[in-house]
């Protein structure tokens, strides 16, 4: 039982963490909470199955194409659902526009791909060892993403520009940083990470259009737990969520496992609305 809780819990948690990071990358660059993160995860699984299983491409080519598609969809999200409404005064407008875009893509996927779950290919042709690839691939993808983002944000100029925009977009613009292009790049990056989440978790979650709503919600939980814009918090929150969810599956079972997750989520938010790792923001008066 413990083995199953740890292996499944960490693997699913890693996918949730990646979706949480996807939310964060879009949020930090634009202050837009885009509900397209789950959609990107869903597409990662569906496109992976399409390229590798149905079109017979090698896994590595399939992965690269999925990531490229994720980047393109991220850019389209920014152009179609964020930019036109970003200047609107009411903040909820862009939340709704991203949600609408995500639903549109989900419906299109349902029509073109089908509403049934489809198999996702085994990515590496090896036998099941102590820990099957469907568990360690998401963990590896999560670790690589976190390290990559740390490198990007701390060691590269463009990463520092992202941080500058995230800290204070007005000041960054005043210094001559191209805010729009940086926002576009951050949505492309988020697209890559979201698609990677779905691709890496495909062997567990299958290629299924219905994964969108699940990933949208369960990917949001680590963001709320870890604090908005805090990637390390999202990783810790995601892994804890996966472990807790799987433990609840064993200990409580049925739909009560979901109820247990929601109950803990609500309690945590009541106790610490800013999340475990988030800091209370000062309000400008």
């Amino acid at each position, binding site marked *: *039982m413990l083995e*199953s809780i740890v292996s*499944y819990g960490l693997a*699913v948690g890693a996918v949730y963490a990646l979706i949480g990071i996807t939310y964060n990358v879009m949020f930090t660059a634009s202050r837009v909470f885009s509900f397209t993160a789950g959609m990107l995860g869903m597409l990662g699984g569906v496109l992976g199955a399409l390229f590798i299983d149905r079109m017979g491409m090698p896994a590595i080519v399939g992965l690269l194409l999925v990531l490229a598609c994720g980047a393109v969809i991220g850019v389209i999200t920014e152009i179609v659902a964020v930019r036109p409404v970003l200047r609107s005064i009411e903040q909820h407008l862009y939340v709704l526009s991203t949600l609408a875009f995500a639903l549109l893509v989900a419906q299109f996927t*349902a*029509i073109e791909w*089908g*509403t*049934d*779950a*489809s*198999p996702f290919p085994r990515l590496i042709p090896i036998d099941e060892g102590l820990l099957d690839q469907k568990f360690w691939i998401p963990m590896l993808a999560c670790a690589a993403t976190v390290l990559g983002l740390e490198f990007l944000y701390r060691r590269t100029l463009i990463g520092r520009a992202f941080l500058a925009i995230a800290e204070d977009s007005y000041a960054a613009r005043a210094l001559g940083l191209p805010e729009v292009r940086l926002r576009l790049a951050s949505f492309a990056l988020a697209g890559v990470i979201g698609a990677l989440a779905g691709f890496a978790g495909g062997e*567990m*979650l*299958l290629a*299924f259009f*219905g*994964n969108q709503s*699940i990933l949208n919600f369960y990917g949001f939980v680590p963001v709320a737990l870890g604090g908005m814009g805090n990637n390390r918090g999202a990783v810790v929150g995601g892994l804890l969520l996966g472990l807790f969810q*799987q433990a609840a*599956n*064993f200990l409580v*079972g*049925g*739909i009560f*496992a*979901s109820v247990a997750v929601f109950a803990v989520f609500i309690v945590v938010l009541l106790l610490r609305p800013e999340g475990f790792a988030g800091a209370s923001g000062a309000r400008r008066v």
Partner: protein
Amino acid sequence: MSVTRRKVLAGSAAGAASLASGLASPAIAANEPLRIGFLPALTGPSSSTGVAMNRGTELAVKEINDAGGINGRKIELIVRDTQSDATKAVNAIAELTHRQKVHVVWGPLNSGETLAATPLCARDGIPMIQPCWVDTLIDVKKYPMAFRNAPTNMQIGNAANHYVMDVLKKKKVAVIGDNAGYATATVAAYVPLLKEKGATIAYQGNVDAANPDLKPELLRMRDAGAEAIMPWSVNAGFLARILNARGAMGWDVPVVGQTTLGSGQTKALLEKPENWEKVYSNNFKNCCYDGSGKLPEKAAAFREKLAKLKIDMSDTLLWWIAVGYDAPTLIAETVKAAGDTPKGITGYWNKLTNWGGIYASLTFTPEQHNGLPDAEVVMCQANSLKDGAFNIAPGYGA
């Protein structure tokens, strides 16, 4: 001879009377085609059934028309694709009954659409026959002109329960569904039936359909001593996860349940082909291979005909095509015997006894518009699909 106003009026009155009399109306009716309004979902997410039934329906109508029609009257099949959408089905019903003036409606073929369409058909007084399983679709008081040529959900549940308890002799049962509407309602409805038959419910639960790991649930079932698993879901991913978890645990327990257990989508999601062993899904006796691998006579001849006509069966099920074929055949026989009026059609169906179709032998009474006999709903071996039909599950006898 002088023509007086009185004579003209008398002659006109006689002419009008003869036109309105019973002699004139068959003459007109004989010239016009019999209009059948057909409502399959040919596109959209729930279209696989509609596409298959449409093949059978088109074939039957063509055969009847090629043979001269019904007493010389051709059948005009007016098809409206509901696109798997209840709203479109409602609009189509309104158009078929009001503008097209159909004599009878066949369909819709999905429950959600039929739930919306049946009251409209009842309001307009048009006889309808439909193959959907939701029990409440048939109510002789509310919808006296609606008939069903397929099983009810209760018949499906009873057939599975019968197989588990009376054929496999398993008394401790685990009943599981996902958290969708169909599954929750079905689990809640079938568990009392099992208890009535004396079963012990070792496990009862509804689980999130997207839960990737169902091993905890299966461990709970095994620990509770379950001797059979009965999953009720139309979600192939959910069903395949149950079968994969059972296989990974090395648990040799029979799985008996919904038709989707035997679908190609479920097969595609299995980690190993062995995970499909000892899995039994709902099916119909008249369209299953018997113990010696033969189809019943009518179904065998029908399949041969389909093969000769090169009607595609590779992507579908024989019983779906057979249901589609039976409906217009029954309608044609009805109109031939009782005319095309709503009263005539309904009256004929209300007395229909053991009408032998390819898919089913139907019996209706004024009090019972569910036509399929219980004995024709059986279980089949989920992994035995060949040319659109399955092997009947072991234990039914000859």
